[in-house]
């Protein structure tokens, strides 16, 4: 007979502390898997170097070079890759390995798992952006924002973009049935979005139907927000409506945050399908 009387019902640690611990653990796991670190952080840098070297002199208008246009888009695209792609691939693998099922069997509040992922992603995304800017500034002549307003835009576009992509990544992790199929399911989505959202091409030169389709997804708006920060204001005339449409950027990204959160809460699976 067990006579021990439980004195507390929940962990003595608070939710933020648990989340922080989970985030530290996630980050530790990320940093210890060297291939993942190198590929996640180096791939966008490599792309910037390639694009910066190919399109050295092509001018668009208002003194903006094509390479500057692409690199600005790459900053947004690297957020998509880090937040959406990494999570949508990593979570099905953890589900397959039974890690999620184990967490589910403990009194850990579900939120703690998500907080851990979000913290890890936030650190990687910030590091990634800093590295990208450090490479892009001397190579293609992108300069840091000069006004407080631009800095503010940079921060909120980044944060809203990270949040939307992270939530969508967690939600999309339920689509892949197995960890092995996850890259095949996730990579095309991320890649197609990059091509239709004006990362590698000037957005307004894409077919109209493609522009309209791309406008449904967050990446197009993240790119547009980033251009408003890093490209001269006069270039706004080259956007589809002749302005940066920052209000609409906030609205669409905000809507994806809300939608992504709803999807996470309703569709997230802790066990594989064969686990019932």
């Amino acid at each position, binding site marked *: *007979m*067990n*006579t*021990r009387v*439980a*004195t*507390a*019902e*929940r*962990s*003595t*640690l608070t939710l933020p502390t*648990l989340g922080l*611990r*989970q985030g530290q*653990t996630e980050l*530790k*796991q990320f940093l*210890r*898997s060297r291939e993942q670190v190198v590929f996640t952080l180096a791939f966008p840098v490599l792309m910037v170097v390639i694009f910066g070297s190919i399109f050295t002199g092509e001018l668009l208008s208002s003194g903006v070079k094509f390479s500057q246009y692409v690199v600005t888009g790459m900053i947004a695209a690297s957020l998509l890759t880090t937040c959406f792609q990494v999570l949508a691939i990593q979570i099905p693998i953890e589900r397959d*390995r*039974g*890690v999620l*099922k*184990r967490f*589910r*069997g*403990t*009194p*850990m*509040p579900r939120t*703690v798992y998500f907080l851990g992922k979000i913290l890890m992603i936030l650190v990687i995304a910030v590091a990634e952006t800093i590295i990208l800017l450090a490479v892009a500034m001397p190579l293609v002549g992108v300069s840091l924002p000069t006004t407080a307003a631009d800095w503010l835009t940079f921060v909120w576009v980044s944060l809203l973009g990270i949040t939307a992509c992270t939530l969508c990544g967690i939600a999309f992790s339920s689509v892949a049935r197995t960890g092995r199929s996850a890259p095949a399911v996730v990579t095309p989505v991320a890649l197609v979005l990059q091509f239709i959202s004006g990362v590698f091409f000037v957005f307004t030169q894409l077919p109209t139907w493609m522009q309209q389709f791309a406008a449904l997804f967050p990446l197009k708006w993240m790119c547009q927000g980033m251009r408003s920060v890093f490209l001269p204001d006069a270039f706004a005339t080259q956007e589809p409506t002749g302005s940066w449409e920052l209000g609409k950027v906030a609205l669409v990204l905000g809507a994806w945050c809300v939608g992504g959160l709803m999807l996470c809460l309703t569709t997230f699976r802790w*066990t594989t399908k064969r*686990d*019932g």
Partner: protein
Amino acid sequence: MTVAEMSVAGDAIEVRGLRKAYGQEVAVDGLDLAVARGEVFALLGPNGAGKTTTVEILEGYRRRDAGDVSVLGVDPAHATAAWRARVGIVLQGTGEFYELRVEEVVRLFAGYYPNPDDADAVIERVGLLEKRRALTHTLSGGQKRRLDVALGVIGRPELLFLDEPTTGFDPEARREFWELIRALAAGGTTILLTTHYLHEAEALADRVGVINDGRLIAAGPPGELGGRSQSAATVSWLGPGGPESAQTEKPTAFVYALAGRFAGGEIPSLTITRPSLEDAYLAMIDTGSSTKERA
């Protein structure tokens, strides 16, 4: 013995009429089960008999189609964090935490519980002290299973589920594992164990239950299962014309009489055996399946 007779108020696990189907396939078909507090109960049964489905319903992982289930007084379909803190789970498969050390995983899990055991003490108890700084994916199969148990008991559970804990162990590792389970049971933890190994059930369990075709077809102390303590003994010996054997209800009298037939009263190659747990089990499984075929 019926479930009603076994059942005592405040049992750790009470199950009545449990039913679960996957599409057309019925995995659990009216199962009754009662496990007393402090008891070590082993569930035996062939693959696909419904063991894991039953256990995972009790753990709160799967939904049931019908029946009443109470685990530590709570319906696991409505599991709360407070309830999970009182239940320890060792799943059938080993979940791997890549790039984390043994002690890091154990400490992480300890933080989830209101009243956790000391992480170092638990690591030592499961025999992973020397491996505490090893990355979990470098552990051997047996060591990974020890880590599973460490994570199952770190919250000081009142009830521990062990789903086929020693599959793939070598005999020595299995014996060491049994000692670990016995120590937990001695500390008052109720344990529900599923296993394929009959000698494991015999070595660990206070009572054994046999599941076949989704029902509990027998339950009792391992020595009494299938009435084997009362069944006839088999006496075998080497006669003048070769090996001979006989079934008898009174083996002592039989051997006494038999000894007179041999010079010097010594019977060559004498053995007396009663049906083993395995014999009793196999007989039960056989009856179970033929019943179903007739139905």
